[in-house]
């Protein structure tokens, strides 16, 4: 059968006008070590960059990093854009310093769930936890 993939493919990148590259590299390393095919589109990536890469590579998940505190603004409409591009089904994960100011994590998490992300991670989450969840989530799909 054509197109049978050996590895699960994930598109990884940092969303928006955001230059924070260190966490992105660490995450890429952690995913590769655990057998994922990582398509790292790097910093300064738009939602469209994620979508284009995901279609071209037939990706199973998108891992969106947002470190600059503007995540809420940048992620707005992300799900709708995915649906429009035929990627409504794709597993979406977001993490980093998603917001600024005093907000409870529960509120933040809820807001990002509502924006269409399947997993939302707080600052300082360990890459191991993200990888474990991802393995589990993609197995269930």
């Amino acid at each position: 059968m054509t197109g049978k993939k050996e590895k699960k493919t994930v598109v990884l990148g940092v969303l928006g006008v955001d230059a924070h590259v260190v966490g992105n590299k660490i995450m890429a390393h952690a995913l590769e070590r655990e057998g994922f095919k990582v398509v790292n589109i790097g910093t300064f990536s738009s939602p469209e960059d994620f979508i284009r890469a995901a279609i071209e590579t037939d990706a199973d998940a998108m891992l969106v990093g947002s470190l600059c505190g503007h995540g809420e603004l940048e992620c707005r409409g992300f799900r709708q854009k995915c649906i429009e591009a035929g990627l409504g089904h794709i597993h979406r994960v977001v993490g980093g310093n998603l917001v600024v100011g005093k907000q409870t994590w529960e509120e933040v998490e809820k807001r990002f769930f509502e924006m269409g992300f399947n997993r939302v991670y707080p600052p300082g989450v360990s890459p191991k936890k993200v990888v474990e969840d991802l393995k589990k989530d993609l197995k269930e799909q």
Partner: protein
Amino acid sequence: MSLALLIDFGSTFTKILAVDLAAEEIVAYAQSCTTVETNITVGLLRALDLLPSSIKEGPFECKLACSSAAGGLRMVAIGLIPELSAEAARRTALGAGAKVVRTYSFRLSAKELAELEELSPDILLLAGGTDGGNHEVIIENARKLSTSRILCPIVIAGNKAAVDEVNDILFAAGKNTLIADNVMPEVNVLNVEPTREMIRKVFIERIVEAKGLKKAEDFVEGILMPTPTAVLRAAVLLSRGTASGKGFGDLALIDIGGATTDVHSIGAGAPLQAGVVQKGLPEPLAKRTVEGDLGIRYNAAFILNLCGQERIVKNAHLPHPDLAQKLQNFSKNVGFLPQCEEDQDLDFALAASAAQAAMERHAGAIEALWGPQGQFYIQRGKDLTGMEHLIGTGGIFIHNPRASAILQKTLFSPEEPFSLRPKNPALYTDSGYCLFAVGLLADRFPELALRVAKKYLKNWN
């Protein structure tokens, strides 16, 4: 005297250069109108007849040719995402010397398929999907193409997990297929060379005959490549050098022709300013862009629309009250060579405007973005500001006394600081009109070809 005869069947003129291989000198040049509509050899024989009798008798060590006659190598590129595999396919075709008449992405619609049949390209390049990535779209496009009236060779260069099925579908429908490596095996990784070589092979084996150029091969050893490929090869040779001959390093080259204006750049073009991040599909080391709307004969009237009267007048030195009418005449009479000072000035202004526009399109650009951490600069395309050499080739650079000023017009301007055009390169013109010949000689005699190229480059600094 050991002679090589190098021939370019151009869109307008058939040009012949005779090179003395021992003395490393151009010993004769002749040109005559290309006669591809009737019989290609007629124009060739006319041009040969213009050579001095001591030379046309031969014998010749080799007789090599390139061609951009009969519309050049017309290709259609198909990919999945416009900015990714479709763009990778387009760039690959351009680098193979083709004129890309259309690029399609996603699943082909019935309307697009009908348009494709109408376009009737010489070669179709079918890409889509990274290796192991999306396979449905390229397979579906193959199914659609299998039902079409397309007869030209189809080069398959997409997702390696899908190419066998794609090939089976097209082959079963009687299509002419060839398989190359994926032009974009991973997101933002270009792999252009294997497909470029395959396109060249198809050109030699099938296109030459299909375009009625085969008759010329009774006289020449072979029409080896499209003319732009020969020029690109000369540019790479001049830039990178040979085993024993030092190259110039990174360079850019502008080829102004009657039907197109091409720009070639050899170099990575990575950001030169601190804090600039490069985004988008990476650029091929040897990059060619072709502007089919900027030929200074066929498109003379269009250049006026595109660049505006103001720019052409600014580039001219004399007043041209009947500018529009004159340019219309240029378009109608594509073999026109300026005789008076006024026409020569207008030709200069037209060439400078076309070259400016072509360089603007070829060079990369910077975009400034504001984020919570301040301002950032994103670069798309190549940064050419540091290019140390800029070469001009084409008839205009031989016939016009102010040739170097055309090149100057294409340089970086402080008024458009985000357009990354060359800032302060040494300027050269191809005084022997020999770069196509250098490209043809490069495979067989690379050292000699490099020396001949350098010898006939006129340095204007």
